[in-house]
C-alpha cells in the first residue's frame, strides 16, 4: 500500500507543533496501524530523521496505552477497537491519513503523538479504597451478588482508561471515564460503604484536572474501544446529585 501520512510533530510540551507530510510505500495490508508506524519510524531512523513518538504497550487492546486520533477519530474508525487493533486493510491504497494526538488541555502533549494522561490516574486515586475484610482468606462466593449487578459492574470495569472519550469530546469532558469507574465500584457490595464519598471525590478531582462539561453529544460512546455506554453518565449525574443532597442534610 502507498500512503500519504499527515502527522502531528511537536518537539516538546512547550513547543508549537505542526502537521508534517510523509509519503510511504510498500506497507503490507496485514500490518496493524502501529506496525505501519514502526515501518515508517525505521525508515526515518535509517535516513537520519527523528522517529515519530507515540504511546503503545500491549498491542492487544487491553492496556489502554495506545492513543492517536486518526482522521479525526480517536483510535480510528471501527467499532470497539483500540489503535493497535486497527489494521491497514481498513484503508485504501493511495489514501491520505491524518494522525494527531489525543487533544485536550488535561492531556498535555509531551512529544509528537504522545500525551500525558496522568490526570486520569489522579481521578482514579481520588476514588479511594474499597473496604474489605482482612485477615484470613475469605471464602469464594461468600458475598452473593445479583447477576445483573455483577454484569453491570463488569461492563463498567472493562474501561481501560485510554482517554478516547476525552479526545473525542469537543469539551474534553471525562464523564464517560469517571462514570465507568464510579459505576464499577458503586454497583458492588464491596464498594458500597464509600459510595457517596467516592462519587463526590472523583467528580471534584475531574473538575480540578480541568476536564470540560458534558453536553450530551455522545461522541465518547461512539469511539470508546470498550463500548462503555453513555447510560453510565446519566447514572453518575444521579449518584452525584444524591450524594450532594445527602451531604447537605446530614
Amino acid at each position, binding site marked *: 500500500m502507498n500512503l500519504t501520512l*499527515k502527522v*502531528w510533530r511537536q518537539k516538546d510540551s512547550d513547543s508549537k507543533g505542526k*502537521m508534517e507530510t510523509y509519503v510511504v510505500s510498500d506497507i503490507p495490508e496485514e500490518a496493524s496501524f502501529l506496525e505501519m508506524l514502526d515501518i515508517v519510524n525505521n525508515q526515518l531512523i535509517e535516513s537520519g530523521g527523528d522517529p515519530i513518538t507515540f504511546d503503545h504497550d500491549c498491542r492487544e487492546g487491553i492496556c489502554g496505552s495506545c492513543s492517536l*486520533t486518526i*482522521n*479525526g*477519530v480517536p483510535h480510528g474508525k471501527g467499532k470497539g477497537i483500540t489503535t493497535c487493533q486497527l489494521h491497514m486493510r481498513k484503508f485504501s491504497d493511495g489514501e491520505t491519513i*491524518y494522525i*494527531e494526538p489525543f*487533544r*485536550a*488541555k*488535561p492531556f498535555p502533549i509531551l512529544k509528537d503523538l504522545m500525551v500525558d494522561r496522568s490526570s486520569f490516574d489522579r481521578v482514579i486515586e481520588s476514588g479511594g479504597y474499597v473496604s474489605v475484610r482482612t485477615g484470613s482468606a475469605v471464602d469464594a462466593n461468600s458475598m452473593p451478588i445479583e447477576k445483573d449487578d455483577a454484569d453491570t459492574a463488569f461492563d463498567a470495569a472493562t474501561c481501560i482508561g485510554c482517554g478516547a472519550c476525552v479526545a*473525542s*469530546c*469537543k*469539551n*474534553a*469532558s471525562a464523564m464517560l471515564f469517571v462514570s465507568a469507574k464510579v459505576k464499577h465500584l458503586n454497583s458492588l457490595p464491596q464498594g458500597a460503604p464509600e459510595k457517596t464519598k467516592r462519587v463526590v471525590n472523583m*467528580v*471534584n478531582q*475531574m*473538575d480540578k484536572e*480541568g*476536564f*470540560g*462539561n*458534558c*453536553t*450530551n*453529544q*455522545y*461522541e465518547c*460512546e*461512539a*469511539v470508546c474501544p470498550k463500548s462503555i*455506554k*453513555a*447510560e453510565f*453518565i*446519566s*447514572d*453518575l*449525574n*444521579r*449518584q*452525584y*446529585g444524591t450524594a*450532594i443532597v445527602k*451531604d*447537605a442534610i446530614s
Partner: protein
Amino acid sequence: MNLTANSFIKFYSSSIGKKVIVAITGLALIGFLLGHMVGNLKIFAGPEKINSYAAWLHSMPLVLWGARIGLLACFFMHIFTTVMLVIQNRRSKGSRYVYQHTNKASGASRTMIWSGIIIICFVIYHILHFTVRFANDYDSSAYIDTMGRHDVYKMLIDGFSWLPASLFYIFSMALLCWHLSHGFSSVFQTLGLRTDKTWGLIKASGYAYSLIIFIGNCSIPVSILAGWLT
C-alpha cells in the same frame, strides 16, 4: 442554613451541578412553552375566549407576576449557566483537531449556543411586541373590547398581519424546536432519569414535543396570514 448555602455553592461550582441547573431551568421553560401555547390556541375559539382568558390571568396579579419573575429567573439562570459552561468547555479543549470529524453528535446539539442566542433575541422582541407593547398602539382605546377588556384577539391579528413579524416568529419557532429536540432528552440524561431501556422513548417524546410546540405556535401566524382568522 449556612451549611445548605455552602452545599449549593459547592454543587453549583461542579460541572454536574451547573448542568443540573441548566436542566431544571430548561424543564421549567419547556413546561411554560406548552402552557403558553395551549392558552394562545384559544384564539381559534374566538375573541371572547382568548380575551376572557387574558383577563382571567390579569385578575391574579400575584400569580401572574410570580410566574413572570420565576420564568425570567429561570431564563436568566439557564443562559448565564450555559455561557459559563461554554467558556469552561472552550478552555478545556485547548487546541482543535486539524482533521475534524463528527461521529454521532446531532446538528442541534452542536448548535445549541447559536439557536439559543437567536431565541434570546426573539424572546426580547416578543415581550416588547405583545407584553410591554413597545412602539405600537396596542394599549390604546382601539384595543379595548366591548366588555372593557384588553382585546388580545385584535392585537394578535394586527401583530401577525405584518409579514416580517410573522416570518421572524416562524423562523424563531423552528429554531426553538431545533433547540428543544436536543434539550428535551438532555434533561433526562442530566438529571439521571434515563436508562438504555427508556432512552428510545425519551428521545421520541422530545421530537414529538418539539413538533407539537412548532405546529401549535406556528398555526396562529399562518392562520392569520392565510386569512382564516380575521
